[in-house]
């Protein structure tokens, strides 16, 4: 059951994307700097709304079977990551659907800007996850965070993860039939507590 709850809105100025992440997403070395990239980043920053919600919860491990509080599922890779953990942080972050609307517009007006902004937005979402990761755990030693889609952790548990952190009501994150989150630049993560 939840041992603690977290919710917050983060000032966008505090979210600083990792340069390597950006260059990987944009398929170019980080020393390349087109004017257009800077312009796209400015437009993106105008619309991002970083938020997070999470819980600290007790967990049960039985071989590859894991119970994070919403029913048992199997994942060898997550079980390995959570070895010897009795509790975990579960959290979700999003930079909001203003980003999706901007991307919808750019899809029509400029494929180049769309590509660049999409890559930047993914980097910002990762940066937000990094920020929240540090904020939630503080000085508590934790395993590296683990997300749905890593290793053999199935996409199918995404709805339950979101439900456990009340993401629908607090962050307005929904899941499509093919298990894609909306807003699209959202991330969920599990962090075992040592």
């Amino acid at each position, binding site marked *: *059951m*939840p*041992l*603690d*709850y977290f*919710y917050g*809105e983060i000032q966008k100025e505090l979210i600083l994307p990792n340069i390597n992440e950006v260059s990987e997403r*944009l*398929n*170019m*070395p980080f020393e*390349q700097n*087109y004017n*257009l*990239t800077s312009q796209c980043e400015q437009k993106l920053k105008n619309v991002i709304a970083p938020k997070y919600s999470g819980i600290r919860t007790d967990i049960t491990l039985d071989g590859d079977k894991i119970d994070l*509080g*919403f*029913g048992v599922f199997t994942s060898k890779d997550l079980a390995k990551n959570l070895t010897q953990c009795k509790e975990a942080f579960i959290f979700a972050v999003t930079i909001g*659907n*203003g980003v*999706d*609307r901007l991307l*919808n*517009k750019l*899809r*029509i*007006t*400029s*494929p*180049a800007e*769309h*590509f*660049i902004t*999409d890559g930047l937005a993914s980097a910002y979402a990762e940066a937000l996850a990094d920020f929240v990761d540090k904020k939630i755990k503080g000085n508590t030693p934790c395993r590296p965070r683990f997300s749905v889609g890593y290793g053999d952790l199935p*996409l199918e548990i995404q*709805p*339950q993860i979101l*439900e*456990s952190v009340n993401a*629908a*009501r607090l962050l*307005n994150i*929904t*899941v*499509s*039939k*093919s*298990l*894609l989150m*909306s*807003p*699209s630049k959202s991330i969920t993560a599990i962090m075992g507590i040592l």
Partner: protein
Amino acid sequence: MKDLRTALKNERLYFDGGFGTVIQSMGLQKGTPPEDWNLTNPQKISAVHKAYIDAGSNIITTNTFGVNCDKYDNYEELISSAVNCVKAAIGSRSDIFIAFDIGPTGRMLKPLGDLDFEDAVKIFKKNVSAAAVCGVDCIIIETMSDAYETKAAVVAAKEASDLPILVTNAYDKTGKLMTGADAKAMIALLEGLSVDAIGMNCSFGPDIMLKHIDDFCENCSVPLIANPNAGLPKVENGKTVYDITPDQFADYMTQLANKGVNILGGCCGTTPDHIRKTIEATKNIPITKPTEKNKTVVSSYTHSVEICNQPILIGERINPTGKSKLKEALRTNNLSYILNEGIRQADSGVHILDVNVGLPEINEAQMMCSVIKELQAVTDLPLQIDTSDPEVLEKSIRIYNGKALINSVNGEVQSMNAVFPLVKKYGGTVIALTMDKNGIPSTAEERVKIAERIAECAKEYGIQKKDLIIDPLCLTISSDSSSALITLKSVKLLSEAGFKTSLGVSNISFGLPAREKINTTFFAEALAIGLNCAIMNPFSTAMMDVYYAYRALHGLDDACLDYINYSSNVSEPIKAAVTEETTLSKAIIKGLKEDISRCISELLKTTKPLDIIDNHIIPALSEVGNDFEAKKLYLPQLLMSAECASSAFEILKMHIGKQNISNDKSVILATVKGDIHDIGKNIVKVLLESYGFLVYDLGRDVSPEAVLDCVKSTGCKLVGLSALMTTTVPSMAETIKLLQSKAKDVKVIVGGAVLNEEYAKTISADAYCKDAMEAVKFATEFYL
């Protein structure tokens, strides 16, 4: 039993409080949906209802928040058992209303998600039909954070029953829904749909609701509801509690009642104690009878536009009359062109966009719905649905996300009987033309009389004068020199009679030379005499000059700030000479989109269009492509160059005879069903277009049947499919299978991060392309 609609207007009523949080404290396991207990523990459910009834609630909501046919095959059973649980708690009392609770589906509607509007309506309709036969007293649509899903639920409720409809949405701390709608936009939408009460629920607590309640009180003409949370959860002594106590809650609710909220209750974290204390504190506060706010308003999914003191500009560019490029775009289903016109107008400062896609050779209803959906994905301006076909109007007003402006109705009985029922059902503000079966009257007084007859007829349909905007019509002065004076007098008389007015301003100069001079002078005079809305060309600097100057002169622009800002942004066209350095090739290689038009103009003085393509554009693209493969430049620049080349092609097309434009090099592109990733596909599209291919882009989440339909309708023999998720690759296989059985001569290339050569073979694709350049190479070779 009392009539709820009467009670809503005349009494203070109390909803119940939190349900999920209460039954969790009664032993509901985490992860078990609350609705399960309707079947497995109905006595406990009834006990919660009884606790709220004992606390004083007189509207009890059914335990069906998460129930719908999308999630449960046995939704009817769950609904009927939920209603029975409430009835068991009510017993023989006749003063308690049963509210059938409809919560969000849990899925996002398109374009941000994958749920189609009509599918959402079907889901909600099944719920309402199931509840209506069980004997509920009303429907409560709650906790939705999307205006579009809310509309789907209300439309479903209206079509499936005659029950009163109450709607509360979940607003965030800034007073907006997740998809951006503010209170005014939601009030415009919901009052247009004739719901019986409107308000807020859930969110972050009553303190947040208090901050935003004034917007509701100032704009809403129906009773108000507030059902807040008891704050946010926290853990105390190993238990989850909410941070607002019953006494604190009651204090906030007292403030809400004093502000004018007549219907009070609670949401997550509230308990019978919270409700009891609230009732004790508020039962003697006199109710605030809802008053008609009389505002003429239209809205989009984010905001409303009120037609009042400020002149409203309606962009007229999405209208095929006199526009060959737009006609071509409609005929070839080139939505990108149409959407770009919309975006450009939105960026120019108009308040509303007119959408007219009437062309005899196309399916107007289908096109109007497509354009509206796509436009609302890229701009948040309210739209004016401009059609004379009632079938087109019905289909488009139904799917419009907001309260639309409708152009138009006129004084003929047939027109009013066709348009007004649709406006009553779906909401809307209507432009009413002052003409009837006798034509357009020659005097202002007679035009006003037609306006009054239209208003009388609208009233019979339950549509108020505030939802009519009268267009007294501009006839060109080239055929009647008194027509401007008659129109201006009509505007004056209509304003004095309490009507709002609109004009298609540029009609006044049809047939004359130097039209802009007449248009701008007429526009200024019409504004001065009280014109509220102008349908006009926002790309005319002269017209926009008049708009900003008028506002500054008439005290509608504080400290002339808008005028100053506008004036400093309007600059002379850039006259920089095309130097030897700024060649077309260089512009393409460097991705300098703003130089393309100028470079082409210069080259056309000395070079034929086809030679420009062969000797300048194609070599520039080849250089860019080679540098990309040699990793001397990267994908962003490749795309910028490709955009420039596409832009150059578009300009040159106008100079090339139709016989020289070949449409047989075409490719159909689609991201497969279930997948909404399209970056890779869009890169392929841009590159293909830059190399002169005609691309039919079907977009994202495309069914196999839609791909086949496009193959059949276009005759295209090359299809490119993209998928980014392992869960959607089977859709790719399905699409290929269908094409192979029904269109054997079509070749299919595939791409996407989860694919490889081997997998492409197993799903019988003709080729796997690892990147966009490979796709271009394949297509080029295919058509050799």
